């Protein structure tokens, strides 16, 4: 497989790793769900790194959920036939 194919697989797997974990059971327990974030006293609204990570995870989950289903299906079919 060429290096671009590897890169595509890496990207898709990373996106899966962000999108698949359950929000209630996993992310809330680790503290990465947007509902469970509590701001510390005297902190800026959106300056802390953790808040940024939470925002990033939430937005990636929102945007990429439906496209990832399609991409995963295509890759699974490709791997079944040609892999």
């Amino acid at each position, binding site marked *: 497989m*060429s*290096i*671009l194919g590897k*890169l595509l697989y890496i990207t898709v797997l990373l996106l899966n790793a962000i999108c698949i974990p359950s929000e209630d059971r996993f992310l809330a327990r680790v503290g990465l769900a947007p509902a469970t974030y509590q701001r510390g006293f*005297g*902190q*800026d609204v*959106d*300056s802390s*790194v953790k808040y*940024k*990570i939470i925002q*990033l995870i939430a937005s990636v989950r929102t945007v990429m959920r439906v496209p990832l289903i399609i991409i995963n299906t295509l890759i699974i079919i490709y791997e079944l036939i040609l892999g």
Partner: protein
Amino acid sequence: MQRATYGRSPPLHHPVPQHVSTVPQLRSPPPPTSQPIAGYDGSPYPQQQPQPPLPGANMFGQYGNFINDPAAQLASQFGQTAFRQGQEYIEQNVNRFVNVSALKHYFVVTNSYVINKLFLVLFPWRHKPWTRRQAAGPSGQEAWYLPPRDDINSPDMYIPVMSLVTYIFLQALISGLKGQFQPELFGYIATTALVAVVVEILGLKLGCYLLSVSNESQLLDLVAYSGYKFVGVIVTISIAEIVNGGKGTGGWIGWTVFIYTFLANSLFLMRSLKYVLLPENNSDSRGPMQTMHPLDSRTKRNQRTQFLFFYAYIVQLFFMWILCRS
């Protein structure tokens, strides 16, 4: 009209080329001539013989003033308009993705700048002022960075692009000297190098997002800075190949050169990226409504310094090792 008083002057003509009719003969296959072979001088075409100007040789007499034709003028205007519109269309669509005028700023280099910058990338130890110089505008209000021609600390794109191309050719040359050259190697090496650059830029942008470094206009700076490591990589590969006699970039000399160029490149990046990631007037530029907590600001600065260190040393070590592998 005022010259009519001097008498009957001949009518004025345009300068008409007299030898135009000889040009197609030169390009056509040699006609069967009955000339002796002695005049043959290696060219199958006949020599350009001075032909007497034919009396009716005014080829353009019929079409000489075709530019005055209204239909031709219309066509010319139409062509100009179409060309201009096409150019605008291209400019719009290119400018949507790449800011061309900002990109031109990075290619304003001179020979002395290139030599000094290469020296600076390889020997950054004694260089003293690392801040970029700014030129004040005519009103004194706005300030922009000087182009690389005037400022050695300014990033440019010329050295990264040229060293990237040189790196591709150098790797292909080395594998050719080993007798393993294939044409696909160019694509493979170029893909590896470009992927390294792109992944590095993405990681840097992610770090800037997480640390809330606002630098919309400095993406091209980051691209330029991430390309300077090819200089060290090229030096490492060539010295190691020469010393090791074409057996790869191993050996203690190869590793020493690699570590030296890696440290030089890292120091260069640390010093140069400081103004991108650690802006000094961060809290000053904000309004009084958004004054930051001093402790918060200090921790943020600490985080940014750690991120800069991580990027300049560990990430660069990884990518330079990837690129130096052969």
